[in-house]
């Protein structure tokens, strides 16, 4: 049985704990890296991280990119979306296709 985790600043992820998602509070990206490693070792299938923290720990997140578990997914934090998540989607298209052929398609 797998668990869901969320890492972020207190205000952003507190609400998730009400839903039964395991929550870890982190205010700096080094704290977030600690928490991410702890979650990754444990039985977590999906780990959500706020973009505000993720922007400074891209290498750490890239480690899990090609692994089956956990799925590290970026979510916007309290102060809004930074567009890193969408950028990651664009990057994976670039990686597979060689060029970004998705972004200009609007209305999806």
């Amino acid at each position, binding site marked *: *049985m*797998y*668990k*869901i985790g969320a890492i972020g600043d207190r*205000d*952003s992820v*507190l*609400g*998730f*704990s*009400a*839903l*039964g*998602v395991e929550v870890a509070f982190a205010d700096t990206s080094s704290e977030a890296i600690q928490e991410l490693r702890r979650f990754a070792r444990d039985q977590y*299938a*999906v780990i*959500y991280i706020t973009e505000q923290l993720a922007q400074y720990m891209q290498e750490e997140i890239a480690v899990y*990119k*090609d692994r*089956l*578990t956990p*799925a590290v*997914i970026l*979510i*916007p934090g*309290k102060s*809004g*979306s930074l567009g890193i*998540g*969408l950028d*990651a*989607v664009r990057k*994976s*298209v670039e*990686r*597979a*296709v060689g060029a970004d*052929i*998705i972004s200009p*398609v609007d209305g*999806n």
Partner: protein
Amino acid sequence: MAVMNVNPTRMELTRLKTRLKTATRGHKLLKDKLDEMMKQFLDIVRENRALRIRVEQALTEAYRRFTVATAVMSPEMLEQALLYPKQAVSLEMTFTNVMSVDVPKYTIQLKNDEPSEIFPYGFATTSGELDAAVSELNGALELMLRLAEAEKSAQLLAFEIEKTRRRVNALEYVMIPQMQETIRYIIMKLDENERGNLSRLMKVKDMMLEEQMEKAHARAEALRAKS
């Protein structure tokens, strides 16, 4: 394109021809696989993009509601209300096979199925805004899981596509031309040997004929001298 370091023998030629055939076949298969994977990938990535936009909207909305809730409640109360959940989620993870790539599929399992059970607090000390925020977030959770699924699938497929494309290119632009070149080289070399052998034989034949002619001449000379 460089010729491989092989002996130009007939055996090597047969071996190379078989290898070339296998490589060409493998190349075709891999290319088909790549095409299909690309198709699947583009579908998934479109879904991924759409889901991400929806999740970001839903979360922004939920955060907005939380902000309202924080405004009317003290942070301590808020934390007290939220930090000890009645609800627990766990995930069932199964794998589906997309073009020989295992991608995860998540099914959510709730401890409490009752819709009202998402609120881990009594209603006496909390505000109605908090209820709205929590239920908004609860609605977003399912979307977030679909997003996780799509995003992980996209990442795994992208990795596999990259790997397959490298293989296809290696076969198409390195292995196959190299083998063709080497096969041509061996054939030329063997033909050349053949021609060399032939001309040598002809030369030897000429020499033998000449020798015989000389002998015949000598005999004729001898006979004439006697008479």
